[in-house]
């Protein structure tokens, strides 16, 4: 009889411990972000003040409203968003194909090409910043949306990740399909791609953020105000001689919103195994 009485309290205990953990972890992770969002309500010089104060003296909406109404901000957001989406789509296409090839196919020179495709991960930006600028300049790509997108599409890091993920796929399914006469392309399209929801979300988010947060390259290659990217825009609030902290925080918070929405939508794809044994 005593056996029966126990499980209920244990379960509640486990659930509340779990809940407390969730709250603690979330708070510590989100604290800096919450501070950033609230700092957006502070005056220009209030953000920097000592002693440290979380809430503003007076909640002023002016930072948020003035940025939200600013045409250039909106344009930068839209241009960057569109660019990021195109970039992500292309990046997924290009990198997933290469990842599959390296994970599953045998071919002449595979070793060589693998090293070739992985190497860029170790190249410091400064090593090729100037020379790649010369390349895009000679190609006439300056001041276009293409120059922001195309050079970064082939990503060693994303391809590497997808390849590792594809390595974990069971060979057995493919063997069966091959026996049935399917081509590699079909296997890729029908077996691997549908199962790639989770890694695609991960890579997709990574690509999206890489594009979204880019700062130096857009400044170098784009001078047309119509193509100003969001980080360039926010950079206007920073300066050696006194930043406009309130605006910067408000702007960064607003700029983060589309990404957060995307995150909320796509996180559901990182779910329990739709895969492997679930194959029909």
């Amino acid at each position, binding site marked *: 009889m005593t056996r029966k009485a126990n499980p209920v309290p244990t379960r509640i205990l486990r659930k509340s411990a*779990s809940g407390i953990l*969730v709250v603690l*972890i979330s708070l510590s*992770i*989100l604290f*800096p*972000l919450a*501070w950033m969002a609230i700092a957006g309500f502070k005056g220009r010089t209030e953000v*920097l003040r*000592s*002693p*440290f104060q979380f809430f503003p003296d007076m909640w002023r909406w002016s930072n948020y409203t003035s940025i939200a109404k600013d045409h250039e901000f909106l344009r930068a957001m839209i241009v960057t968003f569109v660019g990021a989406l195109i970039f992500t789509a292309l990046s997924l296409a*290009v990198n997933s*194909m*290469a990842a*599959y090839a390296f994970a599953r196919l*045998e*071919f002449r020179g*595979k070793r060589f*090409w693998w090293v*070739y*495709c992985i*190497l860029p*991960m*170790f*190249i*410091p930006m400064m*090593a*090729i910043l*100037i*020379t*790649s600028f010369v390349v895009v300049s000679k190609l006439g790509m300056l001041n276009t949306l293409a120059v922001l997108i195309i050079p970064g599409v*082939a990503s060693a*890091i994303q391809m*590497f*990740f997808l390849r590792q*993920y594809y*390595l*974990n796929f*069971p*060979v*057995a*399914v493919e063997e069966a399909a*091959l026996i049935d006469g399917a*081509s590699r392309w079909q296997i890729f399209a029908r077996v691997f791609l549908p199962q790639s929801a989770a890694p695609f979300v991960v890579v997709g988010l990574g690509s999206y*953020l890489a594009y979204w*947060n880019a*700062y130096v390259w857009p400044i170098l290659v784009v001078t047309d105000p119509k193509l100003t990217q969001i980080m360039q825009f926010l950079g206007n609030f920073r300066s050696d001689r006194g930043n406009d902290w309130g605006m*910067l925080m408000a702007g*960064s918070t607003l700029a983060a919103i589309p990404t*957060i929405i995307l*995150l909320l939508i796509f*996180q*559901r794809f*990182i779910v*329990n*195994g739709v895969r*492997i*044994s679930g194959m*029909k």
Partner: protein
Amino acid sequence: MALLESSAIDAPPAAGRQRGSGKGGTGRRAVGARRQDNITAYLMIAPMVILLGIFVMWPLAYSGYLSFFKINYYTGSKFVGLQFYHDVLTSDEFWHSLWIGFYYALLVVPIGIILALLLASFIKTLSKRVAAFMKVTVYLPAVVSTVIASVLFTFMYQDDGVVNWFLSLINLAPVAWLNDPQWALPAIAVPGIWLGFGITTLIVLAAMLDIPDSYYESAMLDGANFRQRLFRITIPLLRNVLLYLIVTGFALAVQMIDLPLIMTGGGPVDATTTPNYYIFSQFRSPDPYSRSYALTASLLLFVVLGLVSIAMFRLIRSDKAVDG
């Protein structure tokens, strides 16, 4: 589909069937099929190869060529052979910055991965909605750019900022986090971890969710405890993903520049001068010597990173397919 089920359930993990069995299968296919693989493969890697070729490899080769010159776009570049390589390799500051970069990576990568493993395991146990909340929460820091994160944490580390405020609650004296040569690098490692462990956690989580529960169940039936399950099932099956996390984590950590640039200016007394920061500060000088020097230093950094990564690949050898 009986073929599938048997291989999924009965096959012991970790020991895993090697690629050999896969090759046995293709033995049935003729050499013609192997050649077909060639064309398919080349087609599939072509976009990547071409894009990298134009925008990365060619500029890299061009930079390599330029590193043998004292670059001047006005009066013409002067050939100096290996002079800059010599100058960089004999520079104490360069080696010091490499050490700082590695030290930073040693702080950020292992802690990040361990935290990710723990968090991912935890999230797995949560209900769907709470899990969704945690997945988003964990990833949120990555949404802000490194620059903003640097600014946020600089404020938090102030003499009278949040961190010292916590210390005062437990009766410890305030620390000059960013201005103390001993604490500065660990201090900037915190935002480094904070920014990256969201994606690491999600990656580990995605990989963990692919491990069939049946493995754990049969292991538990055999009497394995949590630690044994972790080390015998989880980690070996995550090997591929862990390799990825370690290698890329390391490569990215050593190349960190924004955090020291904004938070500490490479100080105090060069305690946070990461390699890229060192290169960048050289690059900023307007004289031709510094530009060529910075270029050569960045190429040497590339070589160092490449060599260390090759070593890591060898150590965590996992380029073999693992059956589920």
